[in-house]
C-alpha cells in the first residue's frame, strides 16, 4: 500500500536533486557536461512533477505541483538529506548522483512491477532515465578515480564526504535495496580504484522533515519569486 508520504518523499528527492544540478548550469567542466547535467536535471524535474501530481491526488486536498514545490517550508519537505547537500566540486556532485541514481533505479524497478498502476507507469518511465544517470555518473566516478593523482584524491574525498548520507536512502521499506545497491557501487569503486568508506555515522531525519541547514537556504532561493506574488499565474 503506497502512502502519500512515500510518494512525496520520492518527489522531493527528485525536485531537490534537480535544483542542485541546475546550479551547475554554465559552470560545468566541459560544454558537453553542461548539456548532460541539464539533461539529468530535466529528468529529475520531470519525475518530480509526475510524482507531485500523484501525491496531490492521493492526498485529495487539491494541491498542485507548484503548491508542493513552492509553498512548503523545509520542515515539510520529505527528501533525504543527501540531495540537499551543497554541490561541492564535480567529484562530490558525481558521488551524490551515483549514489542517488543507483538507489532510484532499484526503487523504480520495484515500483514499475508493483500493484499500484499509477506509480508503476511513472516508475517505468523514470527507471530508464535513472539507468542513464547511473551510467553517466559511474563513468565519471571511474574516470576521476582512475584518472590523475589529483582527481583520485578528490574523488575519494568526495565519496568519503557523501557516504554517511547514503544510509538514509535505505531506511524503512527500502532496507532490502541496500544489498543490490552496494553490489552496484562496489563494482564502480573497483574499476575506479576507490575504497568504500567504512559505515559509521548515519545522519538521518529528512523523511521526517529534519534537514540540514542547507535546505532552508536552497528553498529561500527557489521559492522567492513564486512566494512574492501570491496566487499569480506564470
Amino acid at each position, binding site marked *: 500500500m503506497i502512502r502519500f508520504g512515500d510518494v512525496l518523499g520520492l518527489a522531493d528527492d527528485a525536485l531537490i536533486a534537480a535544483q542542485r544540478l541546475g546550479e551547475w548550469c554554465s559552470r560545468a567542466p566541459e560544454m558537453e557536461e553542461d548539456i548532460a547535467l541539464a539533461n539529468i536535471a530535466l529528468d529529475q524535474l520531470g519525475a518530480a512533477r509526475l510524482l507531485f501530481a500523484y501525491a496531490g491526488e492521493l492526498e485529495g486536498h487539491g494541491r498542485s505541483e507548484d503548491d508542493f514545490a*513552492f509553498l512548503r517550508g523545509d520542515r515539510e519537505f520529505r527528501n533525504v538529506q543527501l540531495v540537499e547537500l551543497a554541490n561541492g566540486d564535480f567529484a562530490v556532485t558525481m558521488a551524490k548522483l551515483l549514489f542517488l541514481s543507483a538507489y532510484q533505479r532499484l526503487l523504480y524497478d520495484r515500483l514499475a512491477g508493483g500493484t499500484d498502476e499509477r506509480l508503476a507507469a511513472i516508475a517505468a518511465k523514470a527507471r530508464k532515465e535513472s539507468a542513464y544517470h547511473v551510467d553517466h555518473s559511474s563513468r565519471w566516478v571511474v574516470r576521476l578515480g582512475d584518472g590523475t593523482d589529483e582527481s583520485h584524491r578528490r574523488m575519494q574525498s568526495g565519496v568519503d564526504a557523501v557516504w554517511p548520507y547514503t544510509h538514509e536512502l535505505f531506511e524503512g521499506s527500502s532496507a532490502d535495496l541496500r544489498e543490490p545497491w552496494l553490489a552496484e557501487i562496489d563494482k564502480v569503486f573497483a574499476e575506479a580504484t576507490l575504497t568504500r568508506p567504512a559505515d559509521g555515522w548515519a545522519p538521518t531525519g529528512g523523511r521526517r522533515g529534519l534537514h540540514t541547514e542547507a535546505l532552508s537556504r536552497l528553498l529561500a532561493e527557489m521559492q522567492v519569486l513564486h512566494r512574492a506574488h501570491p496566487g499569480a499565474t506564470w
Partner: protein
Amino acid sequence: GDPQGYFDAIVAADQKVEPRDWMPEAYRKTLIRQIAQHAHSEIIGMQPEGNWISRAPSLKRKAILLAKVQDEAGHGLYLYAAAETLGISRQELVEMLIEGRQKYSSIFNYPTLSWADVGAIGWLVDGAAIVNQVPLCRCSYGPYARAMIRICKEESFHQRQGYEILYTLSHGTPEQKAMAQDAVDRWWYPSLAMFGPSDSDSTHSEQSMTWKIKRFSNDELRQRFVDMCVQQAGVLDLRIPDPDLRWNAERGAHDYTQPDYDELMQVIKGNGPCNRQRIEHRRRAHEEGAWVREAAAAHAAKKAVAHV
C-alpha cells in the same frame, strides 16, 4: 584549374562551399571570426538566463528554461564544430574568448534583473537573432548554413516561449504587468543594437555581401525586426519604449528611434554592465574544470594503452 574562379562560380551560383574546397584566406578568416563570435554568444548567453533557473516561478517554467539554456549549449557545440571545419580547434577558440581576443554578442552584457527579463530575452533577443540568422541558413559556407538551419528552428521555439512568458505576465497581476513592461523598456534598445552599427558606419559588410555570408544590411534587418515587434507588442499589450515609433505609409514601414550607438560601442569595447562578470564567470568555470578534463584525458590514455 583556377581555384579562385571555381570558388567565385560556386558562390555566384548560390551553391555551397565545403571544407575540402579551396577558399580565399580572407573568406576563411571572416567566417572563423563570425562563426566563433556566434558560438561564443551561445555559450555566454547561457549566463543571463541561467541566472533565473534556480528561481523560476513554476516547475513548468523551470523545465522550459533549463531546456532552453541546454539548447544554447548545444548551439555552441554545433557552431564550434562548424568553425573547426575551417582549421581551428575549439580549445583555441575558447581561449580567445576568455582572453578577450574574440567577441560575443554585446546583448549578453546586460543583466537579467527580473523573471520578465527571461521573457524579454526570448521575445526580443531571440527574435532579433532569428531575423539576423534566417538569411544565414543560405550562407555560402555549407557547414555554417546547415548549423543555422537547425539553430533557427530551435530559436523560433525559444522566441515563442519568451513571448508566452511576457503574455502571461502582461495579462496577470498589476505587479506582473509592470515587471514585463520594465523588462521590455530595458531590453528594447539593446535588442535594436544587436543588428550592429547603421549601414553608413558598418565595416566588413560589403565584402560579406559579395561572399554571400551576409545577405541584407544591418538597417534592413533592423527595420524588419521593428515591424515584426510592433505587431506583437500590440497583442502582448506592452508598450515599446519609443515615443517616435509610428507607421510610415510612404515607406510601408515603421519610423523608429535608433539605438544609442555610442553605448553600443562602449559595450563592444568592454564597458557594458556585465562584460567583466560574464568573462570572469566563463574563465572560472573553465579553470575550475581543468582538473576534470585532465583526469578524463589521463583515464582515456590509460585505457588506450591497455587496449594496445
